[in-house]
Every structure is written in structure tokens, then in C-alpha cells.
């Protein structure tokens, strides 16, 4: 459990300090969502849920959202990514890419509705095209990259195997 907390804490710190340097046209990647998805894809829905809940809690503590929004969304993303790996017969890169993209889009849409509840249709469309879609693409590419790297360098004594055993 401690390893989940440490990993989640590191990712939230990176999110709050370094993500602005990785922003493309003002679109920040959501490392917390990527972490929950990648863990879900690699180690199944339970690990995905645990990491999603932990990282969501930390994100909520530093976010203007009320506590609970990110816990639910990231936890859900972790579970669903685990479910995707069970659903598809072989986990290939298109399934990871599409899975992360759909989950990112869903989480982003929910966050968008919560952050801007009474926004006009024009502004909503603007946010959808300038932030939500680019961010989901960014997250999915990032998630796929992380997944492939971890898969390639996965060793029995690696951090992620350690994570898997706990």
C-alpha cells in the first residue's frame, strides 16, 4: 500500500510543478489519469482502482474541486482500464491508445461539467475543441508510451513487479 501512496504522491507533485513545462498550446497532460490507466492496464482493475483512488485523493487536496471529484473519476478510470484488459483478447497498442483516450475523454467531460456548470453552448464547444480533445489525445499518447516502456523493461525485481506483488 505504501508504494501506491509514494507513487501517487510523486505523480501529483510532478503534476503540480512540472506539467506546465510539458504543456502544448496551454494543454496540460493529466499524469494522475495516465497513472491510474497504466496501472489498470498492466495489473488489473483492483490495482487500478487502488492507485486511482489514492492519486485522486492527493489531486483533490490540491485542486479547487471539492474532495471526491478526482477520487471518483480516477478510481473509475483505474477500474475501467483493468476491465478493458480483461475484455479484449490481446492487449495491443491500439487498444491501450483507444482505451486511454476514451477514459480521458470521459473524465475530462465530467470535470468540464463540474468546473463550468452554467457555461454557454459556444463556450462549451470552445472548451471541448481547445482543451478536452487535445488533452485526451495527449494523455492517450503519454499512457501508451508509459505502457510500452514499462512492458519492455519489466523485470521480476522491478518497481512495477513489486507493485504487482503487493
Amino acid at each position, binding site marked *: 500500500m505504501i508504494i501506491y501512496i509514494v507513487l501517487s504522491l510523486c505523480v*501529483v507533485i510532478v503534476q503540480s510543478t512540472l*506539467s506546465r513545462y510539458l504543456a502544448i498550446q496551454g494543454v496540460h497532460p493529466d499524469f494522475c489519469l495516465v497513472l491510474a490507466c497504466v496501472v489498470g492496464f498492466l495489473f488489473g482493475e483492483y490495482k487500478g482502482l487502488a492507485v486511482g483512488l489514492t492519486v485522486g485523493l492527493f489531486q483533490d487536496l490540491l485542486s*479547487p*474541486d471539492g474532495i471526491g471529484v478526482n477520487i471518483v473519476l480516477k478510481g473509475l478510470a483505474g477500474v475501467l482500464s483493468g476491465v478493458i484488459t480483461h475484455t479484449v483478447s490481446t492487449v495491443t497498442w491500439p487498444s491501450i491508445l483507444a482505451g486511454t483516450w476514451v477514459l480521458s475523454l470521459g473524465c475530462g467531460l465530467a470535470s468540464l461539467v463540474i468546473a463550468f456548470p452554467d*457555461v454557454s453552448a459556444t463556450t462549451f464547444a470552445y472548451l471541448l475543441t481547445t482543451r478536452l480533445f487535445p488533452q485526451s489525445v495527449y494523455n492517450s499518447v503519454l499512457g501508451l508510451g508509459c505502457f510500452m516502456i514499462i512492458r519492455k523493461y519489466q523485470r521480476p525485481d522491478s518497481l512495477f513487479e513489486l507493485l504487482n506483488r503487493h
Partner: protein
Amino acid sequence: MARAAPYLPMSTGLRRISIVIVVLCVGVWFLLPRQSQAVLGWVGNPLSSVLEVPLKWVASLQQAVGETWERYVALQHVEADNQALTLEVARLQGEVNLLKEQAIIAEEFERLLTYQQTAPMKTVPARIIGRNVSNWYRAVIIDKGQQDGIEQEMGVITEAGVVGRIIRVNPSTAVVLLVTDPNVAVTGMIQKSRDEGIIQGTPQGTIQMKYLPPLSTVDVDDRVVTSGLAGDFPRGLQIGKIQSLIKADTDLFQAAEIVPIVDFAKLEGVLVITTFQESIPINLPAPLPPPSS
């Protein structure tokens, strides 16, 4: 058998003459030192130029050997020294950068503290330790929280003007929602025309002043300040300048795009307003003394 060269002894007369000449020369050298020096110089100068060549040759050889020694033999540890010095230079450059950075931060905080001492309100200085963790809000995280007396809805400023409002308070940190976020609204006023309105961020990241009176004489480049009506900011703090006016024929009110006075991208330190007087005190003239009867 080869015969040895015959020894030719100097004749006694010649020997005597030589002795006399030597004694005379020594005597002259003792008795007339200055004059003898000139004569000796006349004789010795050509000899010195003959000596010069081998001397130079030996000197250059000595120099070459010395240089070889210094370059290759005596400097065999120079590579290690060089590496150590390179590391030292890199370390010192890092230190210099760090000190420069600290100096810049100290300068900014000095400005903030100077402003804090002169501002007509109680404030808590805070450092920005993080930016928005979500893509949907424009927020920063500061290093002061409940333990430092920070509460929700408190105003956050710099010496330049309004930054935002505290939206979440943790024990030792707090989240500040910037005025560029659509979820923040501040009551504002055009400094010149005294027209009031609501300052609110937009999803595009700009600031708008809404609900300006339709007959307002507001113009581009007019300064916008807080009106002090809502209770979280005192009156008169700068927010920005009017960039453009928005008014359709069907609109009841005017609106204006505002360029914020604070550069949010370079924000490093802020002041959180904890308490303030409702209006900035003005030095009124002293009341007149009662008329003497």
C-alpha cells in the same frame, strides 16, 4: 716507431718578456682600472659574441627540457586536477545560479514585505509552491494554510494588484483561484469614471468586467480597481487596464476586456489579506475648533 713531437721550450728571454708584460698588465689594471676596462672591453667584446651562440643554444635546450618537463612529466596529475576544477567550476556555476535565483526571489519578497508594511491591511506573505493540478481551473498552491490563519474566501494580492481568492485551505497549504478563472468574481470599479461592475475570468483565460452602466464614459486604457463592496478586497487595489469595450445594440449593459496588471505566469510570491479596513483611510483635515464666544 713514431717519434714524439719535439718539445720546444720557450727561450729564457721570451719568458722574461712574457712575465714582464703580464706584470705590467696587472699593474696597469690595478693602477688605471677605468682605462684598462676600455682596453679589456675592446679585446673581450668579440669573444663575448663567440660565447653568445653556445650560451643561447644551451639556454634554448634548457628551456626545451624545462618545458617538456613541465608539460609532460611534472603535469602528469594535471588531468585529474583539470577534472576536479571542471567539477568545481560547474558546482560554483550552479551555486551562482542558485544565489542569483535566491536574490531574485528575495528581491520580490522584499518588495512584497515593503508593500505589506505600508498597505492599510493585515496580510500574510506566501510562496507559490505549485500550479493548477487540473486542466480546468486556473489556480496556484501557496505554502500557507490553516496554521497560518488562512481561511476560505480571503483575497490574495501582490504589490501590483489583485491575484485571486483562496478557494481551499489545507493545514499548511492553500489553493488560490486566480481572477482569470471563470469561477472567481470580484467587484470592480473604473478608476476614472467611478462606474462599478463585476470582474470575472473567462474560459479563454482573459478577464472581463461585466454589468457596466450603458451610459458609462469608460474608455480604453482606463484603470480598473477593486470597489471594496464584496468584502474580500479593500477598495482601490489595481486589477488591470481596459483593453477593449464590448457592447451590442441589444445588450442592457456594457462589458470590457481587461488586461490584468499581475503577470500570473511569473508569480512567485503573494500576500493573503487576512483583515482590512472597509475603506482606505483618507487624511481628512482636522475639524475646526469651536467658535469662541
